């Protein structure tokens, strides 16, 4: 838990970068500090690991004032990700990942194991360990930047506009990755950005800052539902405020009974299921209905002679958790061309399926659903007009 108590930062020339800020970040929360440049968001974040010392007030981590602690040791306990990645060009990817563990003098095997495990978590193979950062793409570099901040099991991760320099598609993928990692590992993240979409997507709580003050500190839903003042409203923008009325989650539109097979089913049986239910893809689950993967007609057809059961040929499937906003799922379907996206609950159990057809329904609903005129126009009139 991180507590800010009346914290201010006043520079020598009298500028107040942070002005009497108080708020609490609970353990395991993803908190986004957002504001225009000069709002004090970065200063606020950098005070947590004492890259900047506060002028007055106190910051407590788990009840202890951070000023009573050695700054160097404090920083080693807190992960730190910056926009320019800050990867050392003279060190290999491996040396970069284990930088903090090395400072803490971990033994070699443990460092190697940690580096390999984390690299796998961000879908990168061990062959990257011996490469140098400049051989990687921007997205890969920032993946390394992120896992470097996790390598010493830091409970708190500070991120300063980490994805600002990436292209939209890479940024999207990394945002998801970070959110996933954070939820899985239960780390507390303090994330600075000026991108409202990013904040709404990632945050458990958003702190909107302006001129060194926290204007509103609440969950994204609450902020959208009740902006504290005009500044927050203008910061959110008209579009997002209107969207709130149509803020539906996937649960409301998903098909509740997607066609599934269990992983031990044979290919012949699955083809029969496909034919009976008239679908071309089947979701594979285990006995407890936990989603394992997906098989499609083409895949079965190709491997008919080689494989026995569906578990051998099923491929990974992109899924979302129940409660995800529909807008973000729609975005993904359109951008990445998924035909459908399964929805799972916390335990990974398959709950339903969002299909392109469900999106089309929504579009019709939003455009014509409330429009009574359309519904009230009798068919004859339309025909009459056409014939004229």
């Amino acid at each position, binding site marked *: 838990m991180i507590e800010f108590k009346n914290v201010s930062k006043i520079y020598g020339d009298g500028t107040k970068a942070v002005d009497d800020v108080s708020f609490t970040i609970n353990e395991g929360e993803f908190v986004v500090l957002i504001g225009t440049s000069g709002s004090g968001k970065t200063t606020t974040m950098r005070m947590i690991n004492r890259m900047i010392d506060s002028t007055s007030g106190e910051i407590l981590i788990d009840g202890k004032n951070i000023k009573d602690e050695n700054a160097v040791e404090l*920083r080693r306990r807190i992960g*730190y990700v910056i926009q320019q990645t*800050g990867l050392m060009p*003279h060190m290999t990817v491996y040396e970069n990942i284990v930088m*903090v563990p090395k400072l803490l003098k971990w033994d070699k095997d443990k460092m190697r194991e940690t580096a390999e495990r984390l690299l796998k978590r961000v879908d990168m193979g061990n062959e990257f360990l*011996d490469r140098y950062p400049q051989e990687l793409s921007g997205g890969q570099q920032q993946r390394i930047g992120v896992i470097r901040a996790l390598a010493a099991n830091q409970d708190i991760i500070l991120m300063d506009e980490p994805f600002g320099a990436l292209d939209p598609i890479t940024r999207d993928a990394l945002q998801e990755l970070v959110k996933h990692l954070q939820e899985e590992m239960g780390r507390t993240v303090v994330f600075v950005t000026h991108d409202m979409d990013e904040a709404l997507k990632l945050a458990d709580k958003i702190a909107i800052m302006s001129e060194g003050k926290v204007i509103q500190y609440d969950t994204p839903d609450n902020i959208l539902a009740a902006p504290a003042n005009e500044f927050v409203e203008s910061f959110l923008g008209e579009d997002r405020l209107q969207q709130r009325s149509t803020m539906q989650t996937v649960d409301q539109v998903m098909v509740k009974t997607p066609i599934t097979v269990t992983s031990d089913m044979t290919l012949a049986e699955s083809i029969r299921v496909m034919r009976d239910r008239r679908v071309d893809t089947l979701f594979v689950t285990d006995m407890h209905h936990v989603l394992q993967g997906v098989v499609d007609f083409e895949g079965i057809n190709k491997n008919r002679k080689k494989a026995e059961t569906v578990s051998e040929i099923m491929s990974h499937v992109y899924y979302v958790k129940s409660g995800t906003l529909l807008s973000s799922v729609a975005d993904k379907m359109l951008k990445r061309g998924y035909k459908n996206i399964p929805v799972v609950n916390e335990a990974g159990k398959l709950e339903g399926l969002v299909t392109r057809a469900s999106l089309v329904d929504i579009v019709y609903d939003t455009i014509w659903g409330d429009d009574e005129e359309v519904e009230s126009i009798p068919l004859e009139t339309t025909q009459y007009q056409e014939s004229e």
Partner: protein
Amino acid sequence: MLNIEGLDELTQMNTFQQLIYYVQENGAYLWEQFTRHFLISIYGVLFAAIVAIPIGFYIARHSKLADWVVGAANVIQTIPSLAMLSILMLGFGIGVNTVIITVFLYSLLPIVKNTYAGVKNVDNALMDAAKGMGMTRWQQTYKVELPMAISVIMAGLRNALVVAIGVTAIGTFIGAGGLGDIIQRGVNASQGGAIILAGAIPTALMAVAADLVLAWLEKKLDPSSRVRK
């Protein structure tokens, strides 16, 4: 008339043959002066490096001092080497030590300047990351700043060494020895062209070789050239 055996023969030779003859006859002496010359230059540069590299790091962090320090080193650099040698000779007497001190003084500027530039040019984001991850000031210096700046520092050493080899050649005037002695001997002898060459060519070769070796090292140490082994 002196009647030295082989003198007739010697006067018949052209300059190149004389040079070969001189090298054959005085190979050991030549080698001794060569190493002496080299060591004087190296010692001067090395001592300068020991002093100048820390100064470079220091002024990179205290930018206000930088102008003063670089300015002072610049003044030293503008003094002609012969004048400098003579002035120092008044204080330190004749001999090898005075030449080493002269080389030391001339080496300060290129090394300080390059160290300053190298450290100053280390990306701020790297230093921010290094500090933010919990490196101590000293760890930031030797784990990040030094490796990032080392190739620029090497370029400074390279400049310094090439200048040093030239300055050492003049050291003969205050009795320090080195290849300058051989050149001086040739200048004083009538028809000493071959002897001058016997001193001058190794001096030039030494400077070129030092330049090449350090240039290679500089490139090798450049962190931006790092790719997979």
